[in-house]
């Protein structure tokens, strides 16, 4: 287990807070297949936490457990000091957890702006009638929501595609739009499922910059899955390593890099 239970300071001098989310002995099965077996780890306030592992290790399943899409057969999820009951994904979202997807899930026919606006749904409280008539509360809310959306558009430097239908955008920009949609929900915890998959070096550098800036500027806690080892080791404060549904390593990038089980899982080992 990892020794850092409480607050700590990262290598670059950021103060990391107490535990935000804790996964206790999670086991997830699909029929006879065990996707995740007895995994425990925690995520601290303000931290960038990575989950890595070879294909089929159970990383995305883990993210889906956190976001409430899958319900584990065993184990508990603790969020900000209380045990989380079985929740629907939208309830989890209301708690302040937002995510992006491995294979971009945007509305292709809608503009970038409209796509990002959908990220504000959890913050809209006006009644359907009021929204349909565009009167009173609905109007005020829309203005407030648009202001938040515009700040994020500015932050991610996508002003020039504000009105472009998302279907026409190149891959790297779509990923950025997806990140924008997650950010406008003003999440406490941001889950990123392979934010850099399929990107070229320059796009990866941009995305890394944005992830660091999000963490720095908004204090958002980030939990990400990524295959590019260079990126993971540079970005994250602590790393969980999974293989065949088990946890085989947990610690700072340096600790993980020296872990024999991790080396074996990545480089292969003679049986």
């Amino acid at each position, binding site marked *: 287990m990892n020794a850092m239970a409480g607050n700590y300071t990262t290598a*670059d*001098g950021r103060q990391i807070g107490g535990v935000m989310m804790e996964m206790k002995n999670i086991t997830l099965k699909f029929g006879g297949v065990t996707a995740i077996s007895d995994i425990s780890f925690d995520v601290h306030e303000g931290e960038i936490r990575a989950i890595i592992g070879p294909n089929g290790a159970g990383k995305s399943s883990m993210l889906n457990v956190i976001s409430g899409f899958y319900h584990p057969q065993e184990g508990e999820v603790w969020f900000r000091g209380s045990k989380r009951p079985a929740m629907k994904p939208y309830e989890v979202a209301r708690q302040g957890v937002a995510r992006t997807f491995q294979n971009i899930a945007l509305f292709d026919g809608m503009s970038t702006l409209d796509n990002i606006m959908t990220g504000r749904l959890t913050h809209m409280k006006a009644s359907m009638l009021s929204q349909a008539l565009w009167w009173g509360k609905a109007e005020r809310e829309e203005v407030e929501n648009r202001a938040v959306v515009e*700040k994020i558009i*500015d932050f991610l430097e996508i*002003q*020039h595609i*504000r009105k472009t239908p998302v279907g026409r955008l190149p891959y790297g920009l779509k990923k950025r739009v997806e990140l924008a949609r997650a950010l406008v929900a003003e999440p406490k915890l941001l889950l990123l499922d392979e934010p850099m998959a399929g990107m070229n070096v320059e796009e990866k550098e941009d995305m890394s910059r944005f992830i660091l*800036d999000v963490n*720095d500027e908004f204090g958002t806690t980030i939990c990400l899955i990524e295959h590019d080892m260079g990126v993971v080791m540079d970005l994250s404060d602590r790393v969980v390593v999974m293989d065949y549904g088990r946890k085989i390593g947990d610690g700072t990038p340096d600790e993980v890099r020296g872990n024999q089980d991790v080396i074996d899982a990545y480089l292969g080992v003679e049986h």
Partner: protein
Amino acid sequence: MAELTSIPGLLERNARKCGARPAYREKEFGIWQSWTWAEAAAEVEALALGLIEIGLNPGDHVAIVGRNRPQFYMSMVAIQSAGAVPVPVYQDSVAEEIAYVLDHCGACMAIVEDQEQVDKVIEIKERLPGLKDILYVDPRGLRKYDHSHMTPLAEVQALGRAAKGRLEDELKRRREALDYDSTCVMLYTSGTTGRPKGVVLSNRNIIETSKASAEFDKLTEQESILAYLPMAWVGDFIFSVGQAYWCGFCTNCPESTTTMYENLHEIGPTYFFAPPRYFEERITILTIRMEDAGAFKRGMYKRFMELASRVGPRILDGEPVGFMDRLKYAIGNVLVYRPVRNRAGMSNVRVAYTAGEAIGPEIFDFWRSLGINLKQLYGQTEASVFITQQPDNEVRADTVGVPSPGVELKIAESGEVFYRSPGVFVEYYKNAESTADTKDAEGWVATGDAGFIEESSGHLRIIDRAKDVGKLANGALFAPKYVENKLKFFPNVLEAVVHGADRDFCTAFINIDLTAVGNWAERNNIAYGSYQELAGHPEVLETIQGHVEEVNRSLATDEMLSGCQIHRFLVLHKELDADDGELTRTRKVRRKIIGEKFHDLVTALYDGSSSVSTETEVTYEDGRKGSIKATLEIRDAKTVPVEAKTLEAAE
């Protein structure tokens, strides 16, 4: 009255006379935010007080590195108010170039935009003992930086507001000390040769020039412009500060560098400036779009554009045109011209200028035929821009117009153009030798360009850079830029470099235009993986060869320049780039550096070989270096045999 003899003085007048009119607009968070003249004056005052508070002294220099934003324009005026000199720097310069300028002017502060610029300045800070403070506008990503010498600009303004009671008198004293001879701004020339030089321009230079040029084009406080060209360029300073403050019109700043077209469309400026490249680019985009349009629209566009090119410029100049043509043009205006103008953000344009390079006659006429009053001007940093410009209704593609008001012209024996005007610069900073070389005791300044005044119209025609004009081995006149411009008028050719001084014949390097050629490749199902591959494609070479031969045919008809026909050429494997030092920041070809860097290619052009292998170093935007290897095919182009005439006039 000291009020009209400095930019801060003009600001005070504008705040009083038309305080409620907009001075600046910037699109931010999707909405156009604006500052009235009164608000701008208050912002500038707070900033000036803040700068004095943190230790800015009269005569100091302050560098400004960022894209066009109201904060930077207001900073420049605040710096002037505090008695110091603003030095805008090209924001896309690499750290080395910024280091040179900051070191040369001895800047004590740098006002920069964001993390990218802060990083560059920090990288060079150790070498610049004079640089005390970095002030920044956008705090993003800077939280973890050492803030002992860094302050957000907004904080400086807050300091200024707090210190108002204490420092108000000091600011007033400094502002009143400004007169017509105080330095208004210092601008570094891009330098086609050697190191950049700091051109010192006084209030007299800027204000006199702005006044005269505003009268020439009848500019009023009703104008609206889009400030998108680099702030370090003299033109932007004259348009967005000089003329804007003199007339009191509004300067609009785009949301980001990538939204310029959209913002132009939203603002619809009345007074517009763009380099020829911009007008070319817009036609390329329009042409590509029309090719994708339906058959009916395409047909309509073609028909009406033919009509426009026949009668459009004449209608614009108020010449007699038949009734039927006028009627058809009016219909075309509703169906085609107006929508095209609108898309291009030119619906309201009353006066548009292009300068910097020669513009293709077809391109020039295209815009004029749509009813846009596009004109040419000829200018220099040393002249506070204006040397000659075209009056309304006397517009031609091949001249640069008559002398601007207050400008005297003379042509030297060598063919070089000299001018004298109230806009003539004070000096090159810390470089008396160059000042003396350029400006003589009577105030005549050498332009470095060779040209002549057309007797029939009194318009100036420029042939080429005086030092580039040379001779071939057989004595025939060699004017590389003239030939390059002819080549560049083809949409497929982005850049060309012609060699031939003291050689037996002329040869050329050609850069393809990725937008145009890429689109052509797409439509013809030609697959390519990289710029290099496309540039080396046999069909592309075939097309370029066609262009070169067409240029040769056209040159053959010019008795002075028929010797400049291109015998051999190659298509370069990389785009010429300012980061690699091959172009200046204003995208002019640096002939000498290219000649040295690609000397193996030049040799191959002249030794008769049919291909050449080469390796070239490239610099990425962040300053890292890499290299690309390529084997280039060298082609022979057909030339038209003529008896070459020799020329004595051009030295």
